[in-house]
Every structure is written in structure tokens, then in C-alpha cells.
């Protein structure tokens, strides 16, 4: 049982505390540190201690790409809503995935929901059910570019 997760969590929470509090005197810093350590200890169950940490650097690189996708599809949906004919073609898409780890699937599901035009409805470790609003969004979904990106984020660590 390695306490690495515990230490990482404490550091992360302490950083958040400094951002929130903004006061750097001894009283607030010490309360923040002990509070962060206590909260990390309460919320870490023994079976979570050995989980691999998230590939944070790659995740940070993924976010701008996701943001650009969001902007593109937002403009698309804006066009559809403002169109007087309302050219929508909603459908449910079955989306099998083999990402493996739960965290990756959750990231995929949340990214899909965050992109306007597609919403994750059901989620399990091997399949997602997605509601797509129009043809363009479902084509975007079929191209699986998002899944590839997420697979890059999570798997390249194992190969090297």
C-alpha cells in the first residue's frame, strides 16, 4: 500500500486552498494544510491507493483540442436553431468502445456531452448510447476522432 495517492491528493487540495483563500499568513496556511490532509485521508479508500495517477500533462494538451471541437459544434447548433426550417434529424447512436479503463470512458462520455449536438445517455465500460441532434454531429461521432484522442491520452504511457 503506497501512500503516493494520498500525498498527491493532499498537495492538490492544498493548492486549491491557496487559490481559494489567497491569504498567506501562518494561521490560514496551517489550517489549509491540515484540512487538506484530513480531507484527503477521509476520502481515500484503501482500494484506491494503488490506482495509477492520471496522465495530467497529456490531459492538459487534450483540453484545447476539446475546446476547439466545442466551438465548432456550438456554431453548427447555433445555425440549426436560428434556421427557420429547423433542419434536425435526431437519432440514438449505439457507440461501442474499447477504451478499457473507466476513467477514459468517463472522459469520453463527458466530452461527448460537453460538445453540443451529442449527449451521452447510457454509459458502461464497453458501450455508450448517444443522442445526436443532426447529421453533422452524428457524422462527427462516427469518425471517432474524439475516441482516438482519448486513447492517445491514456495509452501511450503504457507503450513507452
Amino acid at each position, binding site marked *: 500500500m503506497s501512500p503516493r495517492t494520498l500525498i498527491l*491528493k493532499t498537495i492538490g*487540495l492544498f493548492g*486549491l*486552498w491557496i487559490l*481559494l*483563500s489567497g491569504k498567506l499568513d501562518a494561521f*490560514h496556511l496551517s*489550517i*489549509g494544510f491540515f*484540512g*487538506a490532509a484530513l*480531507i*484527503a485521508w*477521509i*476520502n481515500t*479508500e484503501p482500494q*484506491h491507493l494503488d490506482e495509477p495517477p492520471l496522465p495530467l500533462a497529456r490531459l492538459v494538451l487534450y483540453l484545447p483540442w476539446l475546446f476547439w471541437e466545442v466551438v465548432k459544434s456550438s456554431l453548427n447548433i447555433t445555425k440549426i436553431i436560428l434556421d427557420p426550417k429547423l433542419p434536425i434529424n435526431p437519432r440514438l447512436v449505439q457507440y461501442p468502445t474499447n477504451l478499457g479503463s*473507466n*476513467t477514459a*470512458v*468517463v472522459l469520453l*462520455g*463527458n466530452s461527448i456531452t460537453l460538445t453540443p449536438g451529442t449527449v*451521452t445517455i447510457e*454509459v*458502461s*465500460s464497453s458501450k455508450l448510447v448517444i443522442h445526436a441532434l443532426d447529421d453533422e454531429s452524428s457524422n462527427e461521432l462516427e469518425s471517432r476522432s474524439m475516441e482516438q484522442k482519448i486513447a492517445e491520452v491514456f495509452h501511450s504511457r503504457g507503450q513507452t
Partner: protein
Amino acid sequence: MIRPHDSVIVHTLARVFTPIIQLFALYVLIHGHDSPGGGFQAGTLFAASVILPVIAFGIQGSLAVLERRAIILGAVGILLYAGIGLLPLILGGEFLNYGELPIPGMETSARRHWGILGIETGVTLTVAATAVSIYYSLRERGEEEGK
């Protein structure tokens, strides 16, 4: 019985956000005097951070120990409040006059600061315990009707 929510997304959300909510509640409690907040709001946030895992993982989720002991925690909170409030009264001041607190080697303003902090902690404990036990008793009521 409160069943777990069976969506992986909700599970991950609860695991990531429970500590963050607790940290935010601590921040609201400690910074009560120079930002909006204080005991009541911090208590509500603490209660929320207990209820969120229960929604996601069911009653076996983390901190389920609190189920029966929540009321005791609330009583401790009230005792803290009343104790700090009554101490100045016994020593010849008014109720909740923190300046009269018998803490050696401290300025009056520092005494006020620590007195307020103690009171707020008591309020936080009581509010959180009450909200959590309300949530648990709602569950028990639903169970009886289901039978």
C-alpha cells in the same frame, strides 16, 4: 435502502468532487468574517458532501458511519456553542461576549476572533448533522411506505 446510482460518470463525479466540496466548506467556515458565509453555509456544504457519495454509491458509500452518530455530532456542536457562549456569562460578562473569554496571553481582538471561530464551528457541526439526519430519515420513511 438507498441503491447506488449505476452510472460510471456519476461515480467518478462523486469521487472527484466530494473532497473539493469539503475543502470549499472549510474555506467558507474559516473565512466567514470577511466573505459571505460562516457556520450555516459551511454546514450545508458539509452536509452536501456527505449526501453526494450516498446518492452515488448507495448507503454503503463512504462516511456511512455517520448514519447513527449524526445526532451526537449535532449535540457536540450545540455544546460547543453554548459552552463558548456561557463562559463569559459565568465570568461576569454578557452571553457571547467573546472579549471576556479566559484565554491567557491574548489581546481582546484576538479573543473575539477565536471566539467567533469556535461558535461558527459549533453551528457548522449542528447544521451539517441535522441536514444529514433529515436526509437519512427521509430514506427510512420511504422504506416503510414501500413495504
